[in-house]
């Protein structure tokens, strides 16, 4: 075991600097804008420059701290641990035992790629609560990254004393390197142009606008708007359309850049996802941590026969904010099964759904009517002529409910449960019985009269749970599902069937 201490590539000083800069850019723009537009009159003289001076000092401080951080950072391998030493003012040391490391994630940003470097995020199981990687090596050469992996597997094998097997599995790895899925340019374009990224962009825009809204001289604008309205609604419509178009194009570009060359591979019981044009991201998900598999078809994509595949992964900072990882962002529906079968050989991907009985259709929209009718009635009353439009909500929600009713269903075999449902997009969720944490049968008074029940299953997803409801199925079916889940009653059958494995 080498005790040589390694440093990061010098470029990481620049990356540190840029990272802090990125976080500061918005306030900086606002400050400059304020001084540029609103700075006339009283605030003349040196005092108007003080902000710039502060920022200049800050910038230099940031650059220096970036350099110091890089200078101070050391990592090495000792006693089957990854040890790092870092810190700007306070020297910190962190030792991570190799066996605790769940995954290594690689990212290649625009600064990394000219030098053949990668950013390595080291994640352990415990890292979930803070949602932060346990260790981050900002920029190291690809060979160094490989070496970490080598040291890790070396340490693990030493423990198990089966080096030979490791060699074998390494051979297997080479064989399996062929990607299971690679998103075609055409699919990428479809994904980009139909993605919900528009909403994301707008929320970003809203944030920005709220930041600068103080600078807008509302009175003058108000007068101008009155003029504008006189010019005609057409102009406004055009302006809105133009803004939407630009927003859409930006979101297409963002999606395109993020999902460029999207591929998935399976290596060593891990799924490896790589994607990105400017910043190459590589995410690994251990298969053992996957709790459920979802196929999601939003109505638009359902029409064109496309779907997305999302997996629920347990724990960890792996997916950062979102515990649901997009395994395949967009794919033709008929191509899904061959790929999923290879990744998840234990799952059965051709379910034959039991649908919800006709008589429970009312449960899909009746509850919404309860609040909708008074709301629509009062809106109609108070905003008399136009308020009547709100009555349209009623047939719409009825139709949505009927649609949800038509989609809902479930299927089970001894080991897994498949649930299909729709909020707006159609979702089919595969869950292995051993991954279901708890199951609840819910019966309301009216459901009882109609002899139906709902089943709620909960799987682990991220650091919390994710509950899925099979709504208003036949009471007998619901009880059947409960019995299926109950360990005691089906034990004799189970033992026979599962012993051979």
């Amino acid at each position, binding site marked *: 075991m080498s005790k040589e201490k390694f440093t990061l590539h010098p470029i990481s000083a620049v990356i540190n600097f840029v990272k802090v800069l990125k976080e500061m850019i918005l306030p900086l723009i606002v400050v400059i804008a304020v001084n540029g537009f609103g700075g006339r009159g009283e605030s003349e003289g040196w005092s108007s420059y003080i902000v710039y001076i502060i920022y200049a000092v800050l910038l230099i401080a940031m650059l220096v701290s970036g350099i110091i951080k890089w200078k101070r950072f050391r990592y090495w391998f000792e006693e089957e641990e990854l040890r790092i030493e870092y810190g700007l003012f306070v020297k910190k040391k962190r030792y991570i035992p190799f066996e605790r490391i769940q995954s290594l994630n690689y990212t290649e940003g625009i600064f990394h790629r000219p030098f053949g470097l990668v950013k390595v995020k080291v994640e352990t199981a415990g890292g979930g609560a803070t949602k932060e990687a346990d260790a981050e090596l900002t920029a190291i050469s690809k060979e160094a990254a490989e070496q970490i992996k080598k040291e890790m597997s070396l340490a693990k094998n030493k423990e198990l004393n089966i080096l030979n097997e490791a060699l074998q599995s390494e051979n297997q790895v080479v064989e399996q390197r062929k990607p299971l899925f690679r998103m075609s340019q055409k699919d990428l374009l479809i994904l980009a142009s139909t993605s919900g990224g528009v909403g994301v962009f707008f929320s970003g825009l809203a944030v920005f606008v709220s930041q600068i809204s103080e600078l807008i001289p509302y009175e003058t604008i108000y007068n101008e708007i009155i003029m504008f309205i006189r010019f005609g609604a057409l102009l406004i419509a055009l302006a809105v359309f133009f803004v939407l178009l630009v927003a859409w194009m930006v979101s297409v570009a963002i999606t395109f850049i993020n999902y460029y060359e999207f591929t998935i591979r399976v290596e060593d019981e891990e799924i490896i996802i790589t994607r990105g044009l400017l910043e190459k991201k590589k995410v690994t998900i251990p298969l053992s941590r996957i709790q459920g598999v979802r196929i999601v078809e939003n109505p638009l994509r359902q029409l064109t026969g496309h779907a997305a595949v999302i997996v629920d992964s347990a724990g960890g900072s792996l997916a950062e904010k979102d515990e649901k990882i997009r395994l395949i962002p967009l794919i033709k529906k008929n191509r899904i099964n061959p790929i999923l079968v290879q990744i998840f050989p234990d799952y059965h991907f051709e379910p034959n759904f039991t649908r919800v009985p006709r008589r429970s259709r009312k449960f899909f929209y009746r509850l919404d009517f309860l609040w909708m009718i008074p709301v629509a009635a009062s809106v109609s009353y108070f905003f008399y002529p136009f308020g009547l439009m709100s009555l349209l909500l009623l047939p719409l929600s009825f139709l949505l409910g009927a649609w949800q009713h038509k989609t809902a269903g479930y299927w089970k075999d001894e080991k897994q449960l498949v649930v299909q449902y729709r909020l707006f997009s159609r979702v089919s969720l595969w869950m*292995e019985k051993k991954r279901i*944490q*708890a*199951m*609840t049968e819910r*019966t309301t008074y009216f459901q009882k009269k109609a002899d139906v029940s709902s089943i709620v299953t*909960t799987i682990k*997803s991220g650091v919390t*749970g994710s509950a899925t409801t099979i709504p208003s199925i036949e009471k007998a079916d619901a009880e059947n599902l409960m019995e299926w889940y*109950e360990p005691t009653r089906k034990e004799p059958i189970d033992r026979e069937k599962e012993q051979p494995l």
Partner: protein
Amino acid sequence: MRQEPINRLSEKGLRVWRIYGIFQTLVALLVGIGAGVINYFTGQYIWLYIVDGVVILLIGYLLIYLFPKIRWTRWRYEVREQEIELQHGLFIVKRTLVPMVRVQHVDTEQGPILRKHDLSSITISTAATSHTIPALITAEADELRGRISVLARVAEDDV
């Protein structure tokens, strides 16, 4: 029809829920008195006083008498070797199965009112969910906690 779980909560639990109901009704009463005072200074409508009073009485009846009674009769639990089964719910009857293999830890807890009546609540946590049995005699709850934790350790992951 599946059988209901066997065990019920302690009878004292019902009493504690009625006490909670009294507290909640007192809050409603204060609000009601406030509404009455406003009515006195603004309109002095007789019918408003009557509505006010009826609403408070109704709230008292529901929160102190009816709801605790329904909840208590509905609440059942059973701890078997391989799983825990719970049944509860006021308007919606919920029956939950938690396999022993999935149990991560068990806690008992006791607030001031529960302590006064020698009661405890017991919370069973899995990796993704948690389930509470609200009112058991403390000794019983402690015993149950021990039993569940032993069973959870023994239960083998057969799937």
